[in-house]
């Protein structure tokens, strides 16, 4: 089993290494689906160059990486530029293995939980319960889904900084399942200062560590705020100016770059009348952050990891500059909910949606930008369909979870007067 883990890891690394040597790498680095203004490698290069020339990179509108990471990357880029793809590959493999260990741990916890609750379960629900085999099955699936998903491979070889975000998120999730509050908070603060939206991931932490006491919750929040301030302070010390705050968080919040991407923001904000901008900015950002936070937290209060998964997925759909690398990350978390799959009705439809829309995006982008015959509406149509597919997937997962919970206690076949009952949602 461990042998298989290393084999998969090596194979995943080999695939990435092979593709990063081909011409595909530079192509992906320029594709808007993968490289957004926030995470593209070109912008990092630009920032490194500006730093080297002694110019504040955040005074312009090109660089949106945090100063700490920019400094670190500039150290590598200036001295060992040819090793950078290998570094990214290694980081991606780290993410993969973290997810692997995370899922093993998760299944163990689930098994323990089940042992306690077994007597309440209905009879014919073995297939809904986690079994001992799942320990390797599920973690293997997670690893496969992360390492061999074309989306993550592409975003890795395109050297997008989504690789770093994914690593931080994976570390956060792993620390969460190991119940290490401080590590979680530090990682989360770091990622929040980088890309704003992960701030919502404080909710699963609160559920996990402070379910029964408000004062602890407030304490965690205070601690989180302190962590964030510390990260910001560290960044300030690196740059010695506050410009970076507007260059990173401000850039995300105010959505200054209208470059097309797979999200929903760009088309709307190009088409909109300028004097409504503030209102819609707030609406869209609320939608991406707190709108779903409270209802989901209430519904999923017993499953912090599922809450985290769903929040990460919603973030990937609704954030201002989403990239396909984000999508690949949350897709890799889906095998954790393997026992809900039985109730997921739209899996195939969503897969087909993804396939069609992703292949259409390429064609329509070509027609719009190179051939000049199609226009923005065509491309937006494809991205809108892609987002719809993702929302189908998330809703499906949530409903499957609810149904599984229900069936676990009430049995899979509910008979009323000898006939199979229909369950209604009211």
């Amino acid at each position: 089993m461990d042998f298989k883990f290393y084999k998969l890891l090596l194979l995943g690394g080999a695939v990435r290494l092979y593709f990063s040597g081909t011409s595909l790498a530079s192509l992906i680095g320029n594709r808007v689906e993968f490289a957004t203004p926030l995470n593209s490698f070109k912008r990092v290069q630009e920032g490194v160059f500006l730093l080297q020339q002694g110019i504040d990179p955040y005074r312009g509108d090109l660089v949106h990486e945090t100063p700490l990471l920019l400094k670190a990357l500039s150290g590598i880029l200036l001295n060992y530029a040819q090793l950078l793809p290998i570094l990214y590959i290694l980081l991606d493999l780290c993410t993969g293995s973290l997810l692997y260990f995370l899922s093993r741990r998760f299944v163990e916890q689930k098994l323990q939980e089940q042992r306690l609750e077994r007597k309440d379960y209905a009879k014919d629900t073995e297939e809904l319960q986690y079994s001992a085999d799942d320990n390797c099955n599920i973690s293997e699936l997670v690893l496969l889904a992360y390492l061999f998903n074309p989306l993550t491979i592409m975003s890795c070889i395109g050297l997008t900084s989504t690789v770093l975000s994914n690593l931080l998120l994976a570390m956060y999730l792993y620390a969460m399942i190991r119940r290490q509050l401080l590590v979680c908070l530090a990682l989360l603060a770091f990622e929040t200062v980088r890309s704003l939206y992960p701030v919502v991931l404080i909710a699963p932490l609160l559920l996990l560590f402070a379910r029964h006491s408000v004062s602890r919750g407030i304490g965690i929040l205070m601690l989180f705020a302190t962590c964030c301030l510390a990260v910001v302070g560290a960044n300030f010390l690196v740059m010695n100016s506050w410009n970076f705050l507007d260059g990173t968080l401000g850039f995300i919040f105010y959505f200054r770059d209208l470059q097309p991407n797979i999200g929903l923001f760009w088309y709307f904000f190009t088409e909109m009348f300028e004097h409504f901008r503030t209102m819609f900015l707030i609406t869209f950002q609320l939608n991406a952050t707190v709108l779903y936070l409270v209802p989901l937290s209430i519904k999923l209060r017993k499953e912090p990891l599922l809450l985290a998964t769903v929040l990460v997925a919603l973030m990937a759909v609704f954030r201002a500059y989403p990239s396909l690398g984000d999508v690949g990350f949350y897709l890799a978390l889906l095998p954790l909910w393997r026992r809900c799959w039985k109730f997921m009705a739209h899996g195939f439809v969503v897969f087909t949606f993804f396939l069609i829309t992703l292949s259409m995006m390429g064609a329509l982008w070509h027609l719009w930008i190179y051939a000049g015959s199609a226009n923005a509406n065509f491309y937006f149509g494809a991205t809108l369909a892609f987002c719809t597919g993702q929302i189908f997937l998330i809703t499906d997962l949530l409903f499957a979870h609810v149904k599984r919970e229900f069936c676990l206690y009430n049995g899979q076949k509910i008979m009323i007067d000898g006939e199979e009952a229909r369950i209604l949602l009211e």
Partner: protein
Amino acid sequence: MGLLSDPSLSTHNKLVDNLAKHVRKVCYAFYTAGVVWFLCLALPEFNHGTYLSENALSPGLVYPEIRIDANRLAVQLLEELQRERKDHQSTTPHAWILAKFNEFGLETHTHNYSLRYPFGGGKEFHGKNIYGILRAPRIGSTEGIVFSAPYRAPSSVHVEISPSVPLLLAFADFARRKNYWAKDLIFLVTEQEQLGMQAWLEAYHDGDKTPDSSNSYLLSGNLPARAGSLQAALNIEVQDLEIDYVDVKIEGLNGKLPNLDMFNLVQRIMAREGVTSGYKQTPRKKRRSSLSNFEQNLRQMLAMLATQSSGVPNGNHGLFHRYRIDALTISAAKRVTNSNVKSNPTSSAVPLLKAIEGIARSLNNLLERFHQSFFFYVIVHNDRYISIGDYMPALVALVACSFIKAYLTWSTLDASAIVLSQETIALKPDTKSLKLSLPYGSVLIYLAVVLLIGYLANVLPLQHYILELPLNAAPLTATILIALSLIGFVLPFVVILPDGGLELLHISLLLIYGCTLIVIGLLNFSLGFFVGVLTVPMVVALNTSTRNSTLRSLARVWTLLLNPLVVIYIIVLVMSFHQFPELTMQQLLLRAATAAMDAAAFALVDSVIYGNWLYFAICTIFLPIWIICWTLALARRRGNEIHQPKLKTN
């Protein structure tokens, strides 16, 4: 409706189950709907009249100023050119054209290019284009319009179009005297058909880049002078100064079309000057036909799709499209001498010259690139068109077949597996993880191998070691293609997928097929639609679990007939039958074989030099899809394999 929030516990839907029993009927219904919708588009109720969207063009706002002296000049130049042509049987009289451009006061330059032909031991061909720029007095050379005329040497096999150059020169002389030009005018004379135009365009746009000479075949060099970003181009092919009608050609590289406004503009101005002109215009005698309106429209549509689907431009204008320059060709046919029509040689070309002036002045008014009107359309009649929103449903209905079948096959996979397992081995209701236990890995590897075969067909013919073989271009390409399809033919006999692999392969085929069809349809509607009409019934008919042996062998024959190479051969055969009806069957078959081989080689050269992706699509997409279809039509399973050896040993 509860699509997202369906509370029922079972994912099994009765509707899906019932539909799954009638997959084929549903699919054929969609197929018929798509085809019928397409046919309906020929009815006047379903298409629209053309109109000009771009107000800046305002055709016919000014009176043409070109006078009879321009015609006199054209006639005189034509006489001079005819004298020159006697000395230049197979070359272009560059010196004469250059002298004339200079004489008219244009900024004249020559452009040299060379072609390293990939086959035949790396022969090199050289060519020379001549162009003159008329700098706009009102702007600093930021935008330009191209007027081009191809020159054909007397030894050329194509129709003679030498009067185009005098006509272009006469118009250039007229244009130089005017001061209202807001865009630079480029007058371009190209040689060697599309090659010269391609080289000139490449040099114009990428000339200052240092070419990667190791793997480029057309070395286009650089241009000494440019005229800003090109807004539009008009290619002029005139057979004689006395013209019968004008045929407007629009189909470009890879099926791209110029903006509909450009076509409308030309039509309007031609009509105003009293020149008979139209899309796919034919001589007057043939035009009087007894066909109904519907039938005429349908023929026109099909003719357009046929030209478009090959992706080969039908004139020099087609190469402009890939640089986002809207261009078309006005090809004027010679008037067949007719005693009824008294023509006056001194003023015969005046209407055409006036039309060119009108087009030039309208284009001169453009404030931005053509963008208002449609880029995706099918012309039904000279003044009627179908837009993308109207014709796309036909293709979508075809593509929907494959997705519907994929969905229904997938959702009934469990059920059919239970039936199978009940029939064959002991009852084993292991349904819970059936979809997870399918052999995904081996199917993926199979798909990768099949794709690799297709990719090889794309890459192999241009490798050095293959090119060194003592074979001509056509047999070489054809041999490689045939060899690779034979490998694909044999593959399913050698490799047999594990249990459930065929079903999974079937579903992945349907998904891949649907996606490719929709992408190809977006890029080149005609190609996508024709391929869809031809192959969708076969893909729908494929069924891996039929027991009926006659049906099975029928499906196999059908699949074999639809092999890309066989299809190409049949198309060429039909075309040569129409062209040479006097040949016997045997001669015809042989001639079609050589013609098909030539076609393959030409497609390859086209893809290398002009960037036509038809060859790529056939090799790297259609061939692999065919191999998968063939695997499914054979439907060889492991179980059968175990039975057969046993019989033999007995």
